[in-house]
């Protein structure tokens, strides 16, 4: 009973946040589409669903998301292991680098990927392989984007699993694989499922990547929702498509809930720094080599193309484009780059703070297993990942328009929208770890006279600190790169880095192109440096107390 009360109390703020800034706006815009003066038009649902082109789009959206998720897990799980269990020079830097794709605008990623797999791209020149306008380019780009999701979510937990348990199984006679399958895999399952869920939702709502790399013959639900809402203003059709998105997500979330819930158990968590070792033996070295090669080809190489182009100034390699950024003219179109870095950081910090508080409280409440209602809320919090930015943006417009909530033109709407996407990451990263904290530790603390707050601080916090940092890193990167919702919110013009890059790319001329590449490089640096700084943070009082 008390657990329920505490659960509800923790849940209050996330509930208000989710209700005001997601459920209400989205319900309003869907309602606007389906309700006319003549009443509800549910007939439209059947009409839209019966259209063969819509059926095609739905089918393609679903299977490419499933394939992308599978491929990402296949490629990134070994990476998660390597990052969790091996020590090697430059590990922290590399972990930050694999997260960089998150912050890049899709037009920029398109450029980078076309240089790799497109006509006259690297693969074309080496082996005559061209993947643009094929579904492979889309899938690989999705791996590029989501590699970090798996490495961070799964690797975070993996690093804290006690390797002695697997060792014990081997001593008892289990083979290497059997020990892994019987001991480690079940412990990891919730994190793997969480990562798969996020990758699925992300790729299910993929927008720019699909069209830029696949060409106009590929279209996703997200693209259709955008077209119907932003271009054609056909709100009824958009409303039906949004409901289809919800239905599909609901199905996936239900499957996820059924498969995962039974597997979550308290685990023996240890200090990640103690579980990692230098790779020894040919097997481990080969694994490390393979992972590093994958990261180099799939992530570092495309990013490198952007850096190379940013330095390829007229009259030879140099910092010409970077210097030109200093001299941005006196128009309102662009701002000096330093200012857009400042804008980006401010928005991202605000969004990260919101996401951490909202997501952290929600994760705390969900750990307490307080009944069906709370568990249903767990699934609800994931929904913003799979709903179109344009739906949310237009929903804001028609709901947050009256005092006391006239936020339509307020800057705060931008970090709020970004936090909506950040919250699921916070919840999904923290939950497996929080649930793995042995309740008996808390009980022991209580028996010894600690208040619930003190027990949380002394027991939970040290164990979840790492997850908290990973979550913060995610939320930060997501906000730094968020573009969709930001761009639909009418705001006094304070362009963020991704917006500035996109604007530059929208204009002809060598200097614009070069400066877009230079700003992209700066964006990558800002992301990587911020993440590195973030990972250095440790609760100093508790470190070494595991």
């Amino acid at each position, binding site marked *: 009973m008390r657990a329920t009360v505490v659960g509800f109390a923790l849940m209050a703020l996330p509930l208000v946040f989710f209700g005001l800034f997601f459920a209400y706006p989205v319900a309003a815009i869907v309602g606007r589409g389906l309700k006319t003066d003549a009443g509800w038009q549910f007939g439209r649902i059947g009409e839209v669903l019966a259209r063969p082109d819509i059926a095609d789009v739905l089918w393609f959206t679903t299977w490419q998301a499933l394939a992308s998720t599978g491929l990402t897990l296949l490629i990134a799980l070994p990476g998660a292991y390597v990052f969790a269990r091996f020590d090697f020079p430059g590990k922290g830097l590399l972990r930050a680098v694999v997260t960089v794709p998150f912050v890049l605008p899709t037009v920029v990623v398109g450029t980078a990927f076309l240089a790799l797999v497109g006509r006259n791209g690297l693969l074309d020149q080496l082996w005559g392989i061209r993947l643009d306008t094929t579904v492979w380019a889309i899938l690989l780009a999705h791996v590029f984007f989501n590699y970090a999701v798996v490495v961070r979510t799964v690797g975070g937990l993996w690093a804290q699993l006690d390797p002695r348990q697997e060792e014990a199984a081997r001593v008892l006679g289990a083979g290497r694989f059997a020990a892994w399958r019987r001991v480690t895999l079940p412990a990891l399952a919730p994190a793997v499922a969480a990562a798969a869920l996020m990758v699925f939702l992300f790729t299910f709502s993929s927008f720019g990547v699909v069209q830029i790399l696949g060409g106009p013959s590929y279209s996703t639900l997200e693209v259709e929702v955008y077209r119907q809402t*932003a271009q*054609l203003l056909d709100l009824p059709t958009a409303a039906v498509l949004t409901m289809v998105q919800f239905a599909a997500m609901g199905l996936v979330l239900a499957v996820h809930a059924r498969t995962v819930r039974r597997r979550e158990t308290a685990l023996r968590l240890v200090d990640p720094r103690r579980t990692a070792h230098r790779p020894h033996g040919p097997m481990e070295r080969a694994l490390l080599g393979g992972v590093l090669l994958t990261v180099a080809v799939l992530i570092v190489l495309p990013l490198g193309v952007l850096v190379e182009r940013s330095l390829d100034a007229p009259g030879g390699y140099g910092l010409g484009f970077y210097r030109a950024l200093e001299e941005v003219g006196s128009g309102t179109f662009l701002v000096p780059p330093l200012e857009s870095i400042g804008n980006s950081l401010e928005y991202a910090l605000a969004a990260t703070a919101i996401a951490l508080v909202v997501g952290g409280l929600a994760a705390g409440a969900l750990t307490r297993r307080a009944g069906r209602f709370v568990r249903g809320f767990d699934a609800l919090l994931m929904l913003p990942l799979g709903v179109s930015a344009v739906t949310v943006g237009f929903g804001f417009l028609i709901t947050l328009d009256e005092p006391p909530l006239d936020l339509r*033109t307020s800057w705060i709407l931008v970090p709020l929208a970004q936090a909506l996407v950040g919250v699921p990451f916070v919840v999904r990263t923290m939950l497996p770890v929080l649930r793995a904290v042995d309740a008996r530790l808390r009980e022991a603390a209580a028996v010894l006279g600690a208040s619930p707050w003190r027990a949380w601080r002394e027991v939970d916090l040290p164990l979840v600190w790492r997850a908290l940092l990973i979550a913060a890193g995610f939320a930060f990167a997501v906000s730094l790169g968020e573009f969709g919702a930001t761009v639909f919110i*009418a705001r006094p013009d304070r362009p963020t880095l991704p917006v500035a890059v996109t604007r530059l790319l929208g204009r002809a001329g060598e200097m614009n192109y070069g400066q877009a590449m230079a700003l992209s490089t700066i964006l990558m640096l800002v992301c990587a440096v911020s993440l590195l700084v973030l990972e250095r943070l440790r609760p100093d*009082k508790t470190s070494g107390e595991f």
Partner: protein
Amino acid sequence: MSTTKKFAGALLVTALGVTTLGACGGGKDKPAAGASDAPKSKTVTLVSHDSFAVSEPVLKEFEQQSGYTVKVLKSGDAGAALNQEILTKGSPRGDVFFGVDNTLLSRALDNGIFTPYEAKGLGEVKPEFVLDGQHRVTPVDSGDICVNYDKQYFADKKLAPPQTLDDLIKPEYKNLLVTENAATSSPGLGFLLASVGKYGDEGWKDYWSKLKANGVEVVDGWEQAYNERFSGSAGGKKAKGDRPLVVSYASSPPVEVLYGEPQPAEAPTGVSTGTCFRQVEFAGLLKGAKNEAGGKALLDFLLGKKFQEDMPLQMFVNPVVKDAKLPELFTKHGVVIDKPENVAPDTIAKNREQWVKAWSSLVVK
């Protein structure tokens, strides 16, 4: 108290503050909103799309002369920005909206989001741009969507660049053209409309079948077409683009010159003048504007010589006022399109979705 904990505490406090602030209605914005409620408001708000731009000194001068402070809100591309205005009809976010083009004009007028106002200086506007007799919208700029060509390529091949839509389906230009998705890209749609204007409601499909047979490539957006696939642009050269013909704007060659380093003596690209669709952009006073007087003054400013002559180098469009001078960059490297293709705004509104669908199944599927 460790710094880390202080940091975490600060984060928590900020987040809570920010969330409550959000929940109770954004105290920060109150003064501005309050001010625009006042009978003699000093702030006038312009709502536009992401491409809107003006020089700082030009805007400052208007602010000093009129006594108004201009607040500019940008949201999304032209279509998204207009649709947001339609959704907020009656309680607009600003006083003036800029950025309705002739492909969207009918939707804007049918939804009745504008109050008629005859801007000062409308008499100076070339009559072909005044498309609404009731002056609910005021024309502000025009631009042409045209095929651009890579001069170097055609010089090397000793081949005359194509000049008309008919030229593009000739065998000597096979596999040379790249265009954008008409369903999602504005130049892509413009090029489709050019063909509709030229060949009519039925003839355009036949034209596109031939264009497809002649190897037209369709990519998603202008960025991919111009910066990746086109061989004549700076970006395309780096990306090793190999299509010497691209659907872009009549102003693209001057822009290539302006942003060349060092500026080339001659534009690397040219315009096929017989392939163009003309876009005209309008502004209007929003119904329910809090500051009508300020909005009217702003519309007058948009038609004023200062803004009209500032526009070309800010947004790369042409002025609509007769005596506005074009910058040297445009007169030297640009071309004047005498006979652009045209389709009436209400015809576009009626057929747009159906044309785009037919185009998609014909060309990209």
